């Protein structure tokens, strides 16, 4: 599988102000890559470097092997981009704005119509009269209306209502099914959890972790509370990755990390009245990265 995006030691300083520092990652063809971080962490700087709007202070970034700074227009022939707060022209209608951008991308006029109908976007209303959510719909249509093989999206669903967010996730899934690559910058953690194959977490300009969503969730402890019909025999829960927190009669509290299947098999052999498995969601994990010291802990070390 070829790499669509490559960033090597990518660094950007705005004078003495930090943008991003030595960011390394690759995004493979057909992958949906989530880029997580709070405001000011460096997400937008990274995307602006990928789009060639900024010249790297050090390192390099390439899209389809083309240098993002020196060969930006050539790279853009295969990229569709939508920003978090695009400054659409209020004097144009949504349809006119989309036609303008479509023409620059080599698309026929009206290429946006099917998506606009799907997202219930009125193309004939002047943009200055649209709500923030409807303006954001233009961004979603703009991103998906072409056939570019890489979608670069910077918080594209902020401002969308829950129904539209679901539609957005469906579009991402369709793009992935069609073999397109998606780079999705977001601080909407459930969205990233549902849409992405891998997630990069950026903190204070540095990439502190890259994992698959499964790895990210699986590498953290889950809490398991069991209520059994009878007290368990000694050694029942002595399993790899399982830590016994407390056994009080028929009540058992365990912590499990990694592969949970051996524990589930053991539980299945017992007579169980109730079971509760609490899985930390990606938000818990994300917050752990942000509360951990910058260096010195395995979870905060860049991969």
């Amino acid at each position, binding site marked *: 599988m070829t790499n669509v995006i490559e960033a090597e030691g990518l660094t950007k300083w*705005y004078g003495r102000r930090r943008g991003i520092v030595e960011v390394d990652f690759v995004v493979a063809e057909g992958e949906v890559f989530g880029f997580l971080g709070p405001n000011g962490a460096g997400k937008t700087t990274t995307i*602006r470097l990928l*789009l060639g*709007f*900024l*010249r790297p202070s050090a390192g390099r970034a390439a899209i389809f092997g083309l240098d993002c700074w020196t060969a*930006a*227009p*050539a790279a*853009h*022939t295969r*990229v569709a*981009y939508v*920003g978090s*707060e*695009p*400054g*659409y*022209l209020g*004097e144009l209608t949504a349809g006119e704005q989309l036609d*303008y*951008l479509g*023409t*620059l*991308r*080599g698309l026929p006029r009206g290429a946006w119509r099917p998506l606009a109908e799907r997202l219930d976007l009125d193309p004939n209303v002047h943009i200055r009269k649209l709500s923030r959510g409807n303006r954001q719909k233009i961004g979603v249509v703009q991103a998906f209306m072409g056939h570019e093989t890489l979608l*670069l999206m910077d918080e594209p669903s902020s401002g969308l209502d829950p129904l539209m967010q679901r539609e957005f996730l469906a579009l991402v899934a369709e793009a992935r099914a069609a073999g397109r690559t998606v780079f999705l910058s977001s601080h909407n953690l459930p969205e990233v959890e549902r849409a992405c194959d891998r997630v990069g977490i950026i903190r204070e300009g540095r990439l502190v972790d890259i994992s698959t969503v499964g790895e990210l969730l699986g590498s953290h402890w889950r809490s398991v509370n069991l209520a059994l019909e009878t007290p368990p025999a000694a050694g029942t829960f002595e399993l790899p990755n399982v830590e016994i927190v407390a056994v009080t009669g028929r009540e058992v509290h365990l912590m499990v990390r990694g592969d949970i299947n051996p524990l589930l098999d053991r539980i299945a052999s017992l007579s169980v009245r109730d079971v509760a498995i609490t899985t930390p969601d990606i938000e818990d994990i994300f917050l752990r990265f942000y509360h951990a010291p910058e260096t010195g802990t395995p979870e905060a070390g860049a991969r």
Partner: protein
Amino acid sequence: MNAALRLEMRRSRTLLLWLAVIALGYGAMLAVFYPVFRDNSKLVDQYLSLFPKEFLAAFGMEGSLSDPGVFFSSYIGGMLWPIVAAIAGISMATRPTASDLERGFLELPLSTPLSRVRYLASAVAGQVTGMAILAAATVAGVLLAGWLVGAPFDAGGFALAGIVAWAFGCAVAAVTTLVAVVTLSRGLAAGATAGALLAMYLMNALARIQPDLAWLGDLSAFRYYQATPIIDHGRFPWGDFSIFGLVAVAAWTASLWAFRRRDLSA
């Protein structure tokens, strides 16, 4: 016409329309009154003789107002046109770079295969076209109204004056484009251009009033925009036109060079 230029012209059309209406209307209104100056030239000259010569020279009134060239220079070439050119130049030159970056629009066209150079070149083409429309409207108003009131002006001379006015406007727009690209600040670029034009106007006036400060006039763009000899003698000032042309081409070229190489962040 490419999509970027089409959009550029569409975004400028309201501004250009209103400025053209103002230039056309103002020129026409003055031309309607021109026969009064022409038919009463002795009285007008007598009235003007009450003013100090330096004062009249400062505002380009060197000669009789019954003279078509002096008339045009006094009321339009030296007064209306610099204002129209400054408003259009500043507005059209700061919008595609500094202003669109500040509002978040710039990233939309530049995330497509459109290169920065082609994007800005389209904007420059829009400026050239816009200035031509305004210069034509400014001259047309005078010619049309003069013809209607029985004071036909020399169309050839006025057309040549319009060409130099266009070159002056292009130079203003080009320098503003360069300042906007370098600073990426609409306010700074607009303020710097307006301030520089005002300073050059005063320098030119000062140079005419005070012979010891004549050298100041050479530093002013207004020194090179003299419509009177063009209209009265039909001589096209190739030297002055070339200066404006060189400034415009150099500033636009530098803008394209700088825009291609600089970071784009608000």
